[in-house]
């Protein structure tokens, strides 16, 4: 596998990069902070001194004009990638978003519009080379409109719908699209929030994602317990959803 990871310096992206490098796959890191990219590349190099060092390039989901150049750099570094993984996104609590509409606009743009645009760039390239794999992190928050994640969840619901359609449309073209729906995972993104039961660790989620990529699955709930949790939540009647705070 020759994998590009957007968001590979932090959290689950970092864990996926390590997991892939450990089994000998080539990785290329995209991120918006040059210093962080350098430190993560150094980490991978120290862990696997005999492998081709991970390349890096700047790529910011808030700056779509840079997507093509970043993917060019990744193509050059990996000698044509065949897999792209997107873990980068923005997160904020509902309170924070409601208090700041400008920030809400930024989050909705990054998580939905710009992520979709990034995927369109990736899709074009992968289809041109006969297929490949694209894994994008959506969220269980997109499965049902819920009070505590009304805005963040809406951005992820849109993304999930796009990824599902992409799979329908291009499955026959050997483009495997994986929509990852993580539940609560303890990373910097959720720092400061109280972890609920079944909260995941980045390493476990990374293992699940790589396995799903290998099997070319279209959808993944991780930790797997969340599939059950969401199955129940999706079936709750509206009058219940209005009452509960979840």
């Amino acid at each position: 596998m020759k994998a590009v990871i957007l968001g590979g310096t932090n959290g689950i992206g970092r864990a996926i990069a390590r997991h892939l490098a450990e089994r000998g796959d080539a990785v290329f890191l995209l991120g918006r902070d040059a210093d962080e990219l350098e430190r993560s590349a150094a980490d991978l190099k120290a862990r696997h001194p005999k492998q081709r060092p991970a390349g890096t390039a700047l790529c910011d989901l808030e700056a779509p004009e840079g997507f093509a150049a970043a993917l060019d750099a990744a193509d050059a570094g990996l000698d044509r990638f065949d897999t792209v993984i997107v873990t980068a996104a923005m997160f904020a609590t509902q309170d924070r978003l409601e208090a700041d509409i400008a920030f809400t606009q930024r989050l909705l743009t990054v998580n939905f519009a710009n992520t979709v645009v990034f995927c369109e760039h990736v899709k074009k390239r992968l289809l041109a080379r006969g297929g490949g794999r694209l894994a994008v992190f959506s969220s269980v928050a997109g499965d049902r409109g819920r009070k505590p994640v009304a805005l963040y969840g809406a951005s992820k619901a849109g993304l999930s719908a796009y990824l599902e359609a992409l799979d329908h449309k291009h499955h026959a073209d050997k483009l495997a699209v994986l929509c990852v729906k993580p539940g609560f995972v303890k990373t910097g993104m959720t720092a400061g929030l109280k972890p609920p039961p079944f909260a995941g660790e980045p390493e476990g989620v990374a293992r699940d994602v790589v396995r799903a990529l290998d099997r070319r699955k279209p959808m993944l709930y991780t930790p797997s317990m969340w599939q059950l949790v969401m199955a129940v939540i999706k079936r709750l009647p509206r009058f219940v959803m209005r009452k509960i705070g979840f």
Partner: protein
Amino acid sequence: MSSRASTVSTALAVAPGPSLSAWGMLPMPGTEIITEDLSHSTLDAVLSRGLGRSYGDSSLPARATDRVVATRHANRILGFDPETGILRVEAGFALAELNRLFMPLGFFSPVTPGTKFVTVGGMVASDVHGKNHHREGCFGAHVRWLKVRLADNSVVTCSPTELPDLFDGTIGGMGLLGHILEVEFTLHRIPSQWVYMESERVPDIDSFISGLNTAAPKWPMTMGWIDCLTRGRSMGRGVLMAGRWAEAHEAPATTPRLGPKITLPFMLPNWLLNPLTASLFNFAYYWRHFQKKKTTLVKPEPFFYPLDAILHWNRAYGARGFTQYQCVLPRRAGEKAVSAFMERLTALGGASPLCVIKDCGEEGRGVLSFPMEGTSIAVDMAVSPDIQHIVDNLNAFVIETGGRIYLTKDRFTRADQFRKMEPRLDRFMALRDKYDPQRRLRSAQSVRLFGDRA
């Protein structure tokens, strides 16, 4: 009696709302911020903690609203030089990961504590020691450089030549001088991934001390398990273990496999570990070593980390929680001091099967580092209404001999007794005056022992 009981009940009271606990399972109200990004998260934070394996309250917040940063996801390797073995890591890099990645390359941590589930930052803050203390000293002796965030939010680097006072205070300083962000230290080369071990059944405490003394010049690694329950003639009997890394030609060609992951999935009932079951365990453990002396090639995992084989083994003590009493008795107090300590310990009762003895080498450079030349004894105890009484009583003995306790394990020592056993405290407080005059950095332990405001 009433004061004893009330201390314990406050310690045991589980506050409503989120709480944090360390290895001894006595929680304190508070939350931790888990993040990869220490350079932001430690701004205005009052305490950093690693994997929460310290037994007592040194990694727990003084107040529920205190900003506590968990470093375990800040775990990148920033550089490694295979020529010199010099490794630079972020503070949350775990020893388990170090072993997994570097043992196959022929490197090992210069010093390892009895569990691999610790972070390198934690190893510095506790200035951990291991089976090779008589040769290699503490972990701090192998640290070359630290990056630290101070209480005023500035970030500085220190080493034996750059801000040496901060460096010495941070080593073994329980995170109270600054947040450890990055650590550079030197790994040791190992000739194989196997350990050559000689173990010997020892009938009593005096033979144990002389056994440790004879083994020290011959073996780079020594330690012993002692039976802390049997009284009388066999008091302090146990198994003495000495080891060294096996040379390449002695070692099997295979690399040692990690054992299966076994987890203690739930809390065992409080009554399960009682004097009877503990004595039965000790009897079995002692006589399992049926031969007087034997030599074997063993894997490093069970040699260094016998208890890591069972994840969450602390649940064996039940919801009452437990503590470890670890002290060092100075050599100048004489060998009789150790047997007198054992007599007091066995008379007080309350000890569990886990009791470890080790001879320590010279004191290191850490201002508050635990080891001093002498004998260290560590014993686990379930928390009971008697625990304060037991700790007070053992502490009184330690003060008489000129010894001290290990802060990383401690939960019950009183401030007045701590002052009596720690003449170095003034020097440490002077460093805090210099680097954190407002005492912004603090822990539940620093409130209990150093007089910080709650």
